[in-house]
């Protein structure tokens, strides 16, 4: 189980190679990589151009929250391993922001835990994005869709 919060880029291929090596009691690995898009909002056609973004975070609380999220995932699914890497600082379009991965004997658990990790992280880990656009900087608003995605898991627990 690994948590990394870092300014520098990561190599998703190398991370996956390391994460998946030497596993003989694992049926599946699910991995998600989140990237910086070059437009604002949900629609590439209507979204304003984004030249990059800067991710601010709350050092200390970030690691603490990510560890809590990972511990919760391990409680809910029979995981072999989990990995969370989240960057902060200035990021250009196409750059990687986040990687989450989960491995389990069963693919259902790998998929669900991976999605849980990214859904919860998006609403519980203290990161904030400011987008750099030709019109100036704009703090990204929290998305209702992210709250909805995360609250699915609250219901699943109850």
């Amino acid at each position, binding site marked *: 189980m690994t948590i990394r919060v870092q300014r520098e880029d990561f190599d998703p291929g190398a991370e996956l190679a390391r994460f998946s090596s030497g596993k003989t009691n694992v049926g599946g690995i699910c991995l998600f990589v989140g990237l910086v898009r070059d437009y604002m909002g949900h629609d590439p056609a209507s979204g304003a151009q984004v030249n990059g973004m800067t991710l601010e975070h*709350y050092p200390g609380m970030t690691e*603490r929250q990510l560890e809590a999220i990972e511990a919760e995932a391990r409680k809910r699914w029979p995981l072999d391993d989990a990995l969370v890497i989240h960057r902060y600082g200035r990021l250009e379009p196409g750059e990687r*922001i986040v990687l989450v991965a989960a491995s389990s004997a069963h693919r259902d658990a790998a998929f669900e835990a991976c999605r849980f990790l990214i859904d919860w992280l998006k609403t519980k880990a203290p990161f*904030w994005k400011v987008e750099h656009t030709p019109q100036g900087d704009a703090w990204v608003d929290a998305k209702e869709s992210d709250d909805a995605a995360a609250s699915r898991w609250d219901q699943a627990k109850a």
Partner: protein
Amino acid sequence: MKVLYFAWLKAKTGIGEEDIAPPDGTATVGQLVEFLKARSPGHAAAFETMSAVRVAVNQDFGNLDTPVKVGDEVAFFPPVTGG
């Protein structure tokens, strides 16, 4: 008591971190906010719309009713947008 501001709350207060000594009787986040609002126009602006503000006490999420005491680390920030 250490108070931290992130994202646009940092921009509005002009402060990332400050050490403050709230008056006796400041027992909750809500009472702390009332004290902080009076410190500067920037603070007042930062706390103008409390529905847009989130709080963590000692790095755990809280709310206006969460107890605070001397020595705590209290952080104010907008809803998170990572991932």
